[in-house]
């Protein structure tokens, strides 16, 4: 019986609900030590001296001199060291590593570091060090702006956002014959291989095993490479297993966050509301090292004009250096920032032109056949109008908005889209692989894609079972262990279903031909094991010019329209969310319950981003690095969610599936702010904390 499109029992089994599932901190090895990182306490300067103020008996101590290979976390640019050599570029930068069998002794060991401080650059708007600049040019924006009947400008800001996966970063490094094995919480085991191999040099063998991972959201994309490298150095020097688990404060202060942004819009329109020119300037605060900022900027810029058609667009983006911990991957990857800006700007345009915000979007939303900012011609699997109309219909948006006028209740919407998979030619360069092994009982999936809660194992097994025409239970999924599975590319960018699922579908098709009507188990009994491995080939029609940012930026897009209903307490300025509707189209859901979980969870992360989650930076570091004072939505902050999954199959995805992971993150920020605007709060930044709303009180703005 086919299982795609049904919510079959998950491959996770029941272990997550019984406590039996093994996370990094649950692993215990004989003779294991605990590791600790000594970090910088200044945002910029040079190390003058390091002094150990403890009895080193029983300690393993690693400094830069102990690094056998290269002291760089290999990723895009080789600029970030595993351990500071001399120059400190941000607060909480790793300087020295300690390990000890006794956790109390380890935590009380004092290390005195003296610095020569230099003035830090903390404001991205004054930083002149540009990590990456991008220009997307379509038509002639200067001329179109001059000819426009109406021009509207605006500046929009978003803050840092902390991932708050409930399991902090953690790994255990275990010395084994000829090298070291890393067991850890991570999204991308092969990223860890690349970075740690370069750190340890070619003589030392390396195996990376992903343990059950307690949430990622991008926060375990690049950072685990750093942590794994540290644990490996301690394990190799001590000759013993070393466990390093960050506590919440260290995790929040030292690891990556969503890039803060400043986005400027200058938009030309006809009086009737047609977009004729869009000039957009995107600034991202990259932090102290390049890490993933160029690609975050890239996705942010490509989505910066929103899901709208306009013949004249100029998008200029920069990601710049500041003396703060590097910002990194976070669900949405630049698009939530830029779509916050355009969607709030659109409601300001509607206000200025005295148009209904729905009408303005109907006039301008992209449809099949239209060209995006990069010149991509959209195909039939584009659903901006469908998600908009369904959201407006089911929430009775227009009438409700009229009815709420003059009250402290508001309703707002946001229309958005999200490209699935790597940008441009990224998937072509990645050449991701997948493998299927025939086993005595069926088949085994051997991919590097990680299960981090989203349902990778289950959804991949569904695709393989239906393609082969075998029962779902006959498909098993290997734990990502780099000595067993192939490199399927990172588990990021809403690509695990659409891209890796597609390669698995192709493996299964090829295997089906080979089996010639027999079941895999029957074939195994007669011939023994066989494996089928395939490499991803993106659709041949994808053309991308990386130099000029022209062409097919993504193979396909998911589309969404969120509607937020809320009220504001006129005395405390607290916002109470009343209801959130999310209408989203991402091809065809393979497992509807898991897909719904992505939309619900992503939407609530977006609501936290909009209203609650404020990273307070002081002297270049997070000053509220605890869950006591950095708050994420609890049950009481989360309103009833009305989720609709529209279907519009993408022919290049397995069973018509697109990516879904990031799309839901793009809408809630602007939908919340547009609902606040409908009450009279002229909000142009998130999080929209009560302190901000108090300064925008419409009751006091009246003349």
């Amino acid at each position: 019986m086919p299982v795609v499109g049904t919510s079959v029992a998950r491959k996770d089994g029941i272990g997550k609900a019984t406590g039996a599932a093994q996370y990094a901190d649950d692993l215990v090895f004989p003779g294991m030590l605990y590791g600790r990182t000594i970090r910088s306490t200044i945002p910029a300067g040079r190390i003058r001296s390091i002094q150990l103020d403890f009895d080193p008996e029983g300690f393993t101590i690693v400094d830069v001199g102990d690094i056998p290979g290269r002291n760089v976390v290999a990723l895009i640019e080789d600029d970030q060291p595993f351990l500071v050599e001399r120059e400190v570029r941000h607060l909480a930068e790793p300087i020295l590593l300690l390990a000890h069998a006794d956790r109390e002794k380890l935590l009380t060991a004092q290390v005195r570091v003296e610095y020569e401080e230099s003035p830090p650059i903390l404001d991205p708007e004054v930083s002149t060090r540009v990590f990456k600049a991008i220009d997307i040019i379509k038509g002639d924006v200067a001329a179109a702006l001059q000819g426009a009947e109406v021009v509207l400008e605006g500046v929009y800001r978003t803050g840092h956002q902390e991932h708050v996966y409930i399991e902090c970063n953690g790994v255990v490094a275990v010395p084994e014959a000829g090298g070291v094995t890393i067991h850890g919480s991570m999204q991308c085991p092969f990223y860890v291989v690349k970075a740690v191999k370069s750190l340890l040099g070619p003589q030392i063998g390396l195996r990376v095993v992903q343990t059950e991972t307690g949430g990622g959201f991008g926060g375990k994309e690049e950072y685990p490479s750093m942590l794994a490298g540290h644990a490996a150095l301690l394990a190799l020097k001590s000759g013993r297993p070393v466990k390093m688990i960050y506590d919440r404060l260290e995790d929040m202060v030292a690891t990556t966050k969503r890039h803060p942004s400043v986005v400027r819009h200058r938009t030309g329109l006809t009086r009737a509301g047609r977009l004729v020119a869009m000039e957009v300037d995107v600034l991202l605060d990259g932090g102290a090292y390049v890490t993933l900022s160029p690609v975050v900027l890239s996705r942010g810029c490509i989505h910066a004009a929103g899901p709208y058609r306009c013949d004249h667009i100029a998008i200029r983006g920069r990601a710049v250096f500041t003396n703060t911990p590097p910002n990194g991957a976070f669900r949405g990857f630049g698009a939530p920032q830029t779509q916050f800006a355009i969607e709030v700007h659109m409601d300001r345009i509607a206000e200025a032109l005295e148009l209904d915000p729905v009408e303005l979007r109907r006039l301008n939303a992209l449809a099949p056949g239209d060209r995006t900012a990069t010149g991509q011609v959209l195909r039939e699997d584009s659903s901006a109008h469908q998600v908009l109309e369904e959201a407006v219909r089911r929430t009775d948006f227009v009438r409700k908005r009229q009815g709420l006028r003059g009250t402290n209740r508001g309703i707002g919407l946001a229309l958005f889209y999200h490209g699935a998979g790597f940008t441009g030619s990224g998937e072509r360069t990645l050449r991701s692989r997948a493998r299927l092994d025939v086993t005595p009982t069926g088949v085994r999936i051997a991919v590097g894609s990680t299960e981090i809660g989203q349902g990778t194992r289950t959804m991949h097994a569904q695709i393989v079972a239906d393609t082969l025409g075998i029962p779902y239970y006959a498909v098993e999924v290997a734990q990502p262990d780099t000595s067993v599975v192939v490199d399927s590319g990172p588990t990021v960018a809403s690509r695990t279903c659409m891209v890796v699922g597609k390669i698995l579908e192709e493996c299964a098709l090829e295997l089906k031909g080979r089996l010639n009507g027999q079941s895999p188990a029957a074939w195994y009994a007669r011939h023994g094991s066989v494996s089928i491995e395939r490499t991803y080939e993106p659709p041949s029609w994808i053309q991308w010019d990386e130099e000029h940012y022209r062409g097919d930026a993504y193979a396909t897009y998911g589309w969404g329209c969120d509607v937020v209903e809320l009220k504001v307490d006129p005395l405390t300025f607290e916002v109470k969310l009343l209801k959130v509707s999310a209408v989203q189209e991402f091809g065809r859901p393979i497992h509807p319950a898991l897909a719904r979980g992505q939309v619900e969870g992503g939407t609530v992360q977006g609501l936290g981003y909009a209203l609650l989650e404020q990273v307070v930076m002081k002297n270049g570091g997070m000053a509220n690095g605890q869950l006591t004072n950095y708050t994420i939505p609890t049950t009481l902050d989360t309103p009833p969610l009305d989720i609709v999954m529209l279907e519009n199959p993408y022919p290049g995805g397995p069973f018509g599936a697109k990516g879904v992971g990031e799309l839901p993150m793009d809408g809630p920020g602007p939908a919340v702010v547009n609902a606040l605007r409908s009450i009279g709060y002229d909000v142009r930044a998130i999080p929209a904390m009560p302190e901000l709303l108090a300064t925008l009180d419409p009751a006091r703005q009246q003349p």
Partner: protein
Amino acid sequence: MKFILNTKVVNVEAHPLARLLDVLREQCELAGTKEGCGEGECGACTVLIDGEPVCSCLVPFGQVEDAEVSTIEGLLGQHPLQQLFMDEVGAQCGICTPGMIMTAITLDAQASDEAIRTTLAGNLCRCTGYSAIYRAIEKWQANR
């Protein structure tokens, strides 16, 4: 020191100021109780002490002398909510799940939606947005 752990009387040697969480995970080898924040905010380490849900990261071990401590392992995988959390995708990454379930099992059969929200307010989940957790609880309530 003696206490009752998942219905059995046990005698465990640990510093009275050690966190109950660490004693459970390390001395008692019951790693199903998870640490999320270490400051009583996230609820991942929730266990029941004499039937009340508490954050075991905030409890000094000495306080549970003669008390009854229940952890996720004590449910033996047989509580209906455990399977329902998986089936309804109330667990995604699963790290909050043991604590969430330990709190949820204290709900009475007639608990209103409001009471469910209030009871679970001390257990953070970053994956689900809570809706699927409510669906699991509703199914359990309907069949109690």
